């Protein structure tokens, strides 16, 4: 569990709290239309979810946090650019909220959502 020590004691941050912030930032990121289960075989019917922990995996390494994001992207956007902005935004939000170092943000695009087909 990531922790910080100050003269009064230590502060622990649970991975669930980090996942909630990461998920919130991810769902605000432009082009991301949902979080997806890590294992897509769970079924595409429940691919869109708002459970704060779904689609976010937080692990701790000596160099900092590693955040894996499993996302669904809007069809018709440039996926590379969306993913790039997503990882920057999640890193920024987690680092500025908790003051913890994020070593890696990995984006896994699990699917695309086609909301309107282009003519």
């Amino acid at each position: 569990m990531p922790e910080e020590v100050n003269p009064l004691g230590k502060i622990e941050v649970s991975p669930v709290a980090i996942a909630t912030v990461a998920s919130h930032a991810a769902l605000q990121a432009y082009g991301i239309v949902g979080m997806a289960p890590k294992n897509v075989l769970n079924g595409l019917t429940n691919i869109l979810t708002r459970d704060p922990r779904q689609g976010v995996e937080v692990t701790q390494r000596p160099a900092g946090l590693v955040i894996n994001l499993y996302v669904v992207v809007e069809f018709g956007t440039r996926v590379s650019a969306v993913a790039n902005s997503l990882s920057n935004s999640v890193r920024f939000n987690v680092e500025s909220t908790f003051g913890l170092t994020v070593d890696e943000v990995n984006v896994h695009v699990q699917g695309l959502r086609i909301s309107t087909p282009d003519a």
Partner: protein
Amino acid sequence: MTAAETTPKPVPDLYSCNGPQFKQLAEAALIWLETNKELVNALNVFPIPDGDTGTNMSLTMQAALREIAPLNDRSAGRVAHALAHGALMGARGNSGVILSQIWRGFARAIDGSETIDAPLFASALREASTTAYRASVRPVEGTILTVIKDAALAAEDAATRHRELRTLLERIVSAAHNSVERTPDLLPVLKQAGVVDSGGKGLTIMLEGMLRYLRGLPLDVAVETAFRPLKLDAVGAAMETIEPGQEWEVIVDFKPRGSIDVSSMYGRLEAMGTAIQVGEGDGMYRVHIHLLKSRRYEPLEMAEDLGTITNVHMENLLAQVGEGDVEPLKLATVSAGQIGVVAVSPGDGLSRVLASLGAAAIVGGGQAQNPSTEDILRAVDDLATDHVIILPNNKNIILAANQVVSLSSKQVRVVPSRSVPQGVAALLQLLPDGDLSQVAGAMEHAITQVHTGEVTLATRTVELNGVAIRDGQHIGLSNGQIVVAGEGLESTLLALLEKMDAGSHEVLTLYRGQDISEPDADALAGQIRVRYPELNIETHFGGQPHYPFILSLE
């Protein structure tokens, strides 16, 4: 480009717009955006120059216009469709992606239409807004999204009363302006930073560009800013990179005898060289220009003609780089089966350092402008070997580099170096004839052994990581984290070294940025030596923009 080529002629009242006319509107939007790009970039809320909004939007629009440039289609629908496709393929950064969605919706609404009239323009903006919102589950208000929504609302309202497109655009632009001004009320982070939303501003500027075109107002940089003299001190701080024909920098201050015709002075200067800037203040003029050695006295002759010279500064820019002549970059040559390294470099000097350590290809790019996946892919594919290692040398480029792995048919490994010093450490592990996985593994280990420090200027007032930062202050980053902020470059650098525990390391390598002279860097190195007598200090010319110093501790 001369002013005559780009100054639009006033357009008569326009009730419908066909393919070629729509193309001109889009072009006007891009030109006006480019003219005002820095204004948009300056609204960046994060304190580090990093993929700026104005630049991203303008690169996205450039890609869009490249797509329609060869098109000679009468149908507005088909031109818009191609424009949207180009924007999608070339989308850069967050704002670029949203912009591509705006065009996508716009194009969908006018699909199949030969011309666009006022009601169709309004419903196209509505569809643009709807499409842009649809790609986000939690749309953030106070951004470009709000501005396109407000613009569409105004368009729908105005289209019921006005059929003339210029009048319609006047209403749209004014609503967009008001919407941009309201963004800080909707988004607290903007209010804290004291700015309006950059993406919304960029969009408004594009719409304004279309309106200016219809009004016959100038759009081009050469026309607009040539007559707007910079403040005297801003000239010295102007960004400089050395390109062919820029061997010498000359700065001349003079007191004019009478009134000066600035445009004809510009004409004379343009014939001499590049990077021209003219400052004005206290009845004085300052001229800054880069030119060939053979022409370096010409600005003085011109200034003598116009008045009395008070001060002259001349500098051989090539001397900063090295031996006095620009040597072409000596990249490592690789043969089939060997390992070739593609490294991303943010500056001329750093490119030389990376090349001297065995990089076989260099892709330009760094803090403010990330190279695209295509740029890196091209460098990988151009190498004469099918074993390639990519060193992104910046955390924001790692993702683009990773994509190359699946796009290239070659065996490609990305060693996720997040700074140039990490890239240098990785290159030291290069064995051209070694096994790709083993070499990449050794490099991955090596980059964890080096500590990177960076000193840059904050572009915003903000509080980050508990460090209060004011606009214009120097900030020091240790392995990507802001750890110090201070007034002077010197004190910030020393404070950063202290935070990084420089005393416990053996070697300090300093790469000076493009705005730091060699004597200045040496003087600083001297001070560091006094403080850390045990430390072995090396200084190199890095040539990177934005960052006066990048350093590594080993």
